[in-house]
């Protein structure tokens, strides 16, 4: 990866909303070049999207997030890709990862009630041919997400002036 891309990605990974002109100042590069490179990386799907971290707890919106461990039988010639696709195509599914260890796929579902998650698991996920078993874990509290600590806010406690 070229140096410009590294610089851009390092910064925007945590600051998606920065403008091209500000970013170019921060990393000491030409604005036009930065703009072009971002557009190119969007096109190449290197930058796949921009999300917003929302602390839903703070606005009193109840959301349920479940991490579902799924054990599956890999299919001949397809490995896990086919079953993964059958799961990720559901719009309520947030993410799907192939995992090493005691189970195969980690599926996260967000934004539904407990009941909806339960019925998704029993009606859609479990009955799939290659799915052997599932284990549903509900998130109770989000302490830190994407490097952002959600549970504390800190004041600047330093002296106003020091040498």
């Amino acid at each position, binding site marked *: 990866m070229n140096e410009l891309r590294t610089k851009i990605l*390092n*910064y925007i990974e945590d600051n998606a909303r920065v403008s091209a002109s*500000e970013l170019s*100042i*921060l*990393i*000491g590069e030409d604005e036009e070049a930065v703009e072009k490179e971002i557009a190119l990386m969007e096109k190449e799907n290197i930058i796949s999207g921009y999300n917003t971290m929302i602390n839903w707890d703070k606005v009193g919106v109840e959301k349920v997030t479940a991490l579902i461990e799924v054990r599956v039988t890999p299919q001949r010639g397809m490995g896990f890709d086919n079953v993964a696709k059958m799961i990720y195509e559901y719009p309520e599914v947030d993410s799907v990862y192939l995992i090493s260890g005691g189970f195969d796929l980690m599926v996260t579902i967000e934004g539904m009630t407990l009941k909806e998650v339960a019925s998704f698991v029993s009606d859609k996920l479990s009955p799939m041919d290659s799915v052997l078993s599932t284990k549903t874990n509900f998130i109770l509290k989000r302490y830190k997400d994407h490097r952002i600590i959600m549970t504390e806010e*800190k004041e*600047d406690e*330093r*002296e*106003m*002036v*020091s*040498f």
Partner: protein
Amino acid sequence: MRDPVSKTIVDIKPSGIRKFFDIVATMKDAISLGVGEPDFDTPWRIRDEGIYSLTKGKTHYTSNTGLMELREAISDYLKRKYSLSYDAASEVMVTVGGSEAIDIALRAMLDTGDEVIIPQPSYVSYEPCTILAGGKPVFINLKEENCFRLTAKELEDAITEKTKILILPFPNNPTGAIMEREDIEAIARVVIEHDLFVLTDEIYSELTYKEEHVSIASLPGMKERTVYINGFSKAFAMTGWRLGYACAPSVILKQMLKIHQFAIMCAPVTSQHAAIEALRNCDAEVSSMKQEYDRRRRFLVHSFREMGLSCFEPFGAFYIFPSIKKFGMTSDDFATALLKEQKVAVVPGTAFGASGEGYVRISYAYSLKRLKEALVRIEAFLKDHEGA
């Protein structure tokens, strides 16, 4: 009753900008760009080591020189980072911040009347520590046209028969200036020729944004005439832990140790345990903080130039030092007016020596968000005072 206080101490002038600080103290709602310490908390792994040492009951004095394991870690780190070779057993001591090291180095080396060359603007303690040690401060006024670097010519001109020590404060607080290899090579030649000693305060050495920092102690013939001072405050965001160190030939270090032993005993033990982790396992944390400072530095220099404030590009520490000469105010008046009118606190350049007149120190040890808020206010202030 006799005068209860020492004449020497009374004669040490209090900071010339006392008045300014009195106002700052009353304005709690001001945005401050006045601090000389990182905004980052100490990296967790360092804090965690401190806590762990406490749970193990590591609560006692250490040897006067500091934990051997820490001195070895310092020696390894300096070798790895700056190609310096100091023997952990005889040439390294752990101090209560770099500031203690400055004080005891001067006291260990000076006799009454010895002259100490202090380039200014620079950190506030060199002058009083020199005086308390019986020395005589001789100032060099660093110039913006030289990017606030010290030149061999300026040094030559300041040397007299009584000159014993040159203080070398780079990367510099408050200007953000650095000295590159050819700059310090030129200085080293003069130092050797005139048989001087160097007290090099490299507390900001991890924070340079151009070439890798070069220490004067690494140049041929310089180790034997250098006291090297560094610490954990800036590089590892450990200001409150009060931990620094000095490295010097044992003939000097032995005398420094005497003062330290009687005045201090030893540096805080918890800090020493935490510091071992800092030196050994925190390169990633240090470089990510440095990267963040660098972005803010670019942003501020750019913004100030856009506003029409003349500002040389600093390549070290976390300060910029713009010139405010065109506003026809003293640094003190400028800072006071900015504070009163727009509630932004910056430090007048004169806090760091007379040659800081015409400049203010602005710290970028603040989040970008905070800096932007302050910039809006500063811009309004500049508009109000343009053409004054």
